[in-house]
């Protein structure tokens, strides 16, 4: 489930942001980020691809790290039991072969298809709109509409917030509908609990009202409390009866 949810989330994110038509006219022409920002991202991407392609390279590093950790686990004595080293776990050979096949195959297919379907820009036509009179860019699927079905399924957990228009007049003018899902765990459970605790702790402030007599009383109470806590109650009762 998690894999599919992740896929859905990234399709939504990538699609809404990069693909389709611009929803609003840009104030100023969006310009590519400077090279210094691109290079780090590219480097990281390459690194991921490299590990994906040749996991065998990363294994020795991971092994050593895991070994130290596992050795520490039994520092109390006894021979350090090394964790199952990563090598035999993952069929690294096959993974390399398959990912290579995937890369090469995909590249070849894309190039082949692109050569077959070379179309000059001027011959391009608007997307097929099933004959609708005036499709506007705003009719595209935005991110919340994309996720609407999923949110509906998990409504009990996500508690989406709806801002539906309330129609008041007979002939409603412009209306808007916005729904968003806030960070459930943080907003719904964590912060309210913290606020409640803070209120409870504030209530304790009456313990320090500023009157000095009370402070001296606290000192006396401390002595009595300590004295009583050490003398077992039984002996205390026995002690009440003077010898």
């Amino acid at each position, binding site marked *: 489930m998690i894999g599919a949810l992740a896929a859905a989330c990234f399709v939504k994110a990538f699609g809404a942001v990069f693909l389709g038509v611009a929803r609003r006219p840009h104030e100023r022409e969006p310009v590519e980020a400077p090279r210094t920002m691109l290079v780090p991202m590219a480097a990281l991407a390459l690194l991921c691809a490299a590990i994906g392609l040749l996991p065998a390279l990363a294994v020795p590093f991971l092994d050593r790290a895991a070994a130290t950790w596992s050795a520490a686990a039994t520092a109390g004595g006894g021979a350090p039991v090394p964790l199952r080293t990563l090598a035999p776990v993952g069929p690294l050979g096959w993974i390399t072969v398959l990912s290579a096949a995937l890369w090469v195959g995909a590249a070849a297919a894309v190039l082949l298809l692109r050569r077959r379907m070379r179309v000059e820009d001027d011959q391009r036509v608007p997307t097929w709109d099933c004959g609708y009179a005036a499709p506007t860019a705003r009719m595209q699927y935005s991110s919340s509409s994309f996720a609407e079905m999923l949110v509906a399924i998990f409504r009990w957990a996500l508690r989406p917030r709806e801002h539906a228009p309330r129609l008041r007049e007979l002939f409603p003018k412009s209306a808007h509908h916005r729904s968003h899902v806030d960070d459930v765990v943080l907003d719904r459970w964590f912060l309210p609990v913290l606020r409640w605790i803070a209120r409870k702790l504030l209530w304790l402030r009456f313990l320090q009202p500023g009157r000095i*007599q009370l402070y*001296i*009383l606290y000192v006396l109470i401390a002595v009595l409390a300590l004295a009583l806590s050490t003398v077992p109650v039984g002996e205390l009762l026995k002690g009440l009866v003077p*010898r």
Partner: protein
Amino acid sequence: MSATADALLVFVLMLNFVVLGSGRIRSLIYTVAAQGVALGVLPVLVHPAGLREALVSIGAIVLKSAVIPRMLMRAMADLPVRREVQPLVGFRTSLVLGAVATAASLLLASRLPVLGNTAVRLLVPASFATVLCGFIVLIARVKAITQVLGYLVLENGIFLFGLLLLDAMPFLVEIGVLLDLFVAIFVMGIIINHIHREFSSISTERLSTLRE
């Protein structure tokens, strides 16, 4: 010899109740001074008379019954503040508390292994009672000057207990303790003056702005 010591100790206990019950600050100071005198005499009675004991008792008498009360009286004189003692907890309740405290200290003392040979069996309970009465005065009175007197009563109680182990305390330390008491009262007197100048009253109700 121990009979007179016992009598004196009973007198000290009585003074405790007078302290708790007295309504006017002036009488409070006199009572504490009387207690000072009674305590001053005790070291000579309890331990075989020696130069050290004599010096300690003279020092105590001079300090507790003369120097400090006069200082407090002078502090009282230039404070045009009403003379009554403002009790936080009514006089009667303080007296009842005092009685309970004395009973408890008597009981506690009876359970603690006091060495038989000390001439005075009553010494330990008396000191506990005085300490607890000092606490009651500190907690149950509003005016700052009465708190100083409560502290004095507390010190008297501890001084009483100190009589048991006169030889443990080197003479120098004994005088040090008395000196400290004097300086403490002196500094408190100065602060009371400042309080009066700042708040034009020495009741601790004005002294409760700092709170959480």
